[in-house]
């Protein structure tokens, strides 16, 4: 490195104009623009605190399908995968007046290629003494009327999980036995029983009917029935094991990751720059202390320490950012930056500043740091992804605040729930892809700026 490098200086505006001349620079700026616009849109449509509360509210997502793949992904599978079917506007028939019995009939046109994932009936009733008693019938395209269950509501708000009732599975096994004439050689799941073709065991497309006969305890009692047949696809990003739409976590998580990476990289680089300048400018014992501290810091087991601290003290992600900064201020960057300071120190304009009596502070902050700032910027930008990945690592070890939706957190949950083994690839790929996009864009931007501020690289 020679003094030539420090004679060309760039303003921030100049650097920005230069970036736009590179294709890769434009690409990375475009990616940032898209991600930031998406996040701004998300934050404007719902404040962060509310989104976080919703994200952690297990009751809020009951009517969403579990582990549903994104709609666009279903397009590639070549099959028409089921979406959620919300059964509404039943036909009401009064069967008897005393006791009051009403039959609600829902018609379902099932045209999908795959079985639904679940079938729940949400009940909301008001009653005087006794809760209503429900008889649930299922009429398939063969015209058979099967009594699925007879149940009494347990509270005024209740959910019947049709897909989880063992007795219904038993009923369908009996039904198949009767139809086939022998005991079925394949396992009968409830979804197969409900929507299956008896011969081929595939989905039988056609019109199904759900009949619910409600016997009320009193004439004034009312009931609201909301049957939902859960699909296997949902939204732009799919849902996770707690039925939460992933786009919510990704949209609100990306800015957190960005802020974490940017905050860490920016503050660490600036503090290191100041320390390096002080070390190089003053020399003597100040230099000595800073250099020895740097050597100790290089042997500090950084990652285990970070994990230990965040596990023992249960820090939030922002407190952890401060710990991270403290643990990295004497990083190896100081060594290279100090070498630059030693070169700048000998330049004529510093001599000039000394002769007219500029204070040490003035020289450090106004003359040296601005001079060595441009060569440091590429490193600053290239190291941002490292901190984003650090967040992912800490999430992966489960030592971060579990309520905070971050990209790493989503990946960790996917891992914990066996997404890779069960084939829910979208769950891992979506947050990973955002991280990869961020990382590559930052790297490209850093390389472009490196080429601008270190002109020697242009030739090589």
């Amino acid at each position, binding site marked *: 490195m020679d003094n030539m490098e420090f004679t060309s200086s760039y303003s921030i505006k100049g650097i920005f104009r230069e970036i736009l001349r590179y294709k890769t620079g434009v690409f990375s700026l475009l990616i940032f623009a898209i991600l930031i616009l998406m996040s701004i849109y998300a934050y404007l449509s719902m404040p962060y605190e509310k989104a976080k509360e919703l994200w952690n509210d297990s009751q809020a997502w009951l009517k969403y399908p579990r582990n549903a793949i994104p709609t666009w992904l279903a397009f590639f599978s070549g099959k028409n995968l089921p979406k959620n079917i919300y059964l509404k506007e039943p036909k009401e028939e009064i069967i008897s007046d005393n006791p009051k019995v009403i039959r609600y009939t829902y018609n379902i046109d099932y045209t999908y290629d795959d079985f639904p994932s679940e079938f729940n009936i949400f009940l909301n009733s008001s009653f005087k003494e006794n809760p209503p008693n429900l008889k649930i019938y299922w009429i398939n395209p063969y015209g058979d009327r099967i009594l699925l269950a007879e149940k009494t509501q347990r509270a005024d708000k209740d959910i019947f999980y049709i897909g989880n009732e063992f007795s219904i599975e038993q009923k369908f096994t009996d039904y198949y036995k009767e139809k086939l004439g022998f005991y079925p050689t394949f396992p009968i799941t409830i979804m197969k029983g409900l929507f299956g073709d008896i011969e081929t065991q595939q989905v039988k497309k056609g019109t199904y009917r759900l009949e619910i006969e409600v016997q009320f305890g009193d004439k004034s009692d009312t009931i609201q029935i909301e049957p939902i047949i859960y699909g296997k696809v949902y939204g732009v990003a799919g849902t996770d094991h707690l039925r939460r739409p992933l786009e919510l976590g990704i949209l609100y998580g990306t800015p957190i990751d960005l802020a974490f990476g940017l905050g860490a990289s920016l503050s660490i680089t600036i503090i290191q720059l100041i320390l390096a300048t002080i070390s190089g400018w003053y020399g003597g014992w100040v230099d000595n202390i800073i250099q020895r501290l740097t050597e100790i810091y*290089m042997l500090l087991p950084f990652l285990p320490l970070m994990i230990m601290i965040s596990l*023992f003290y249960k820090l939030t992600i922002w407190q952890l950012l401060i710990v991270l900064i403290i643990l990295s201020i004497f990083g190896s960057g100081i060594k290279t930056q100090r070498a630059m300071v030693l070169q700048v120190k000998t330049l004529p304009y510093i001599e000039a500043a000394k002769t007219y009596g500029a204070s040490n502070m003035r020289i450090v902050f106004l003359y040296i740091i601005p001079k060595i700032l441009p060569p440091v910027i590429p490193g600053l930008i290239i190291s941002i992804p490292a901190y984003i990945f650090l967040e992912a690592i800490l999430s992966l070890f489960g030592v971060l605040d579990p309520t905070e939706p971050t990209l790493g957190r989503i990946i960790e949950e996917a891992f914990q729930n066996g997404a890779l083994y069960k084939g829910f690839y979208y769950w891992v790929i979506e947050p990973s892809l955002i991280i990869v996009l961020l990382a590559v864009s930052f*790297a490209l931007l850093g390389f472009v700026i490196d080429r601008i501020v270190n002109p020697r690289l242009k030739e090589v």
Partner: protein
Amino acid sequence: MKIEGIKKILIYFLKRAIAIFITVAIAIYLTIVIANAGGYVDKIIEDEIRMNVAMAIRNDPSVRGFTDEQKQKIIENRVRNEMRRRGLDQPFIIRSIYHLKRALLLDLGTASSMTSDSGSMLVKNIILERIPLSILLFTTITIINFFSALYLGLKLSRRYGSFLDKLIVYLSPLSTIPGWFYGIFLIMIFYSWLHILPPGGFIDFPPPPTLLGKILNVAKHMILPVLSWFISSIFLSAYSERNFFLIYSTEDYVEVAKAKGLPDKVIERRYILRPALPPIITSFALALISSWMGAIVTEAVFNWPGLGMVLSRAIGTFDAPVIVGVTVIYAYLLGATVLILDFIYALIDPRVRI
């Protein structure tokens, strides 16, 4: 090499060893101070003493007729006495020196719930039995990466401007993505989708009967972790090594060698590689150190039963002694790595000898 030179290297090595040991001790001391701000280190030792005392009381015939309450009282008394004997009732500054001495001697206490494969509950045993596996995986990774980057960098610098050269330059931003992250994708491709490689682990269960079978089986489990780190590092390190070689190959003495008509191989080895070696070794050192850090998460992703796996299991069961122990061991490992690299550096860099 003369005796004089060897003596100089040894003195240099000794000096570095002492300096690094002091640095490691300070790093461990910092770890203890940080961990003990939550009282964790004190508690580790108190638990250990309490366990020993309880064992002794249980086997002591002289207290047999006592009720549980009386026994508990005796235990409490003895624990307090033992703590006082060891100086643990002193203020923290004195206690911390005691903790430091223990940590430096690898006396890391007993785990609260984990056990080693041999059944020991000593943190030292739990950790030390896993270190060889970590070293096996990560020295393999670092050596493969180092030599392939060296080879590729040298080739690229000779074919400067070719298609491959440009490709590597364009792909180099991909190296910002760490190895373990590629690991996730590799597991997805080679295990979940193609079903040809195991998703992780060290050896099949049950292991193959023959030694050769065992070695091949372990190698099979190592493919994905090694590959993930290879993809992650190769582009950037080949690129930066190419730049080193390009800078060194424009030196005057290389031109002279070319003018003399020396074969390419000799020029590469003697005139380009040799002077470029010290900075390359430095980058190798940094790679090795960062691989120790990356080991933690890579092992967790690939279920490789090394040090990182111990840490992630300890996190899962909140085993504070093991977590502190792993951090201490890591400080030692880093120190040892730096020391070995210093030694290699001294061997190849003539400036150290003079």
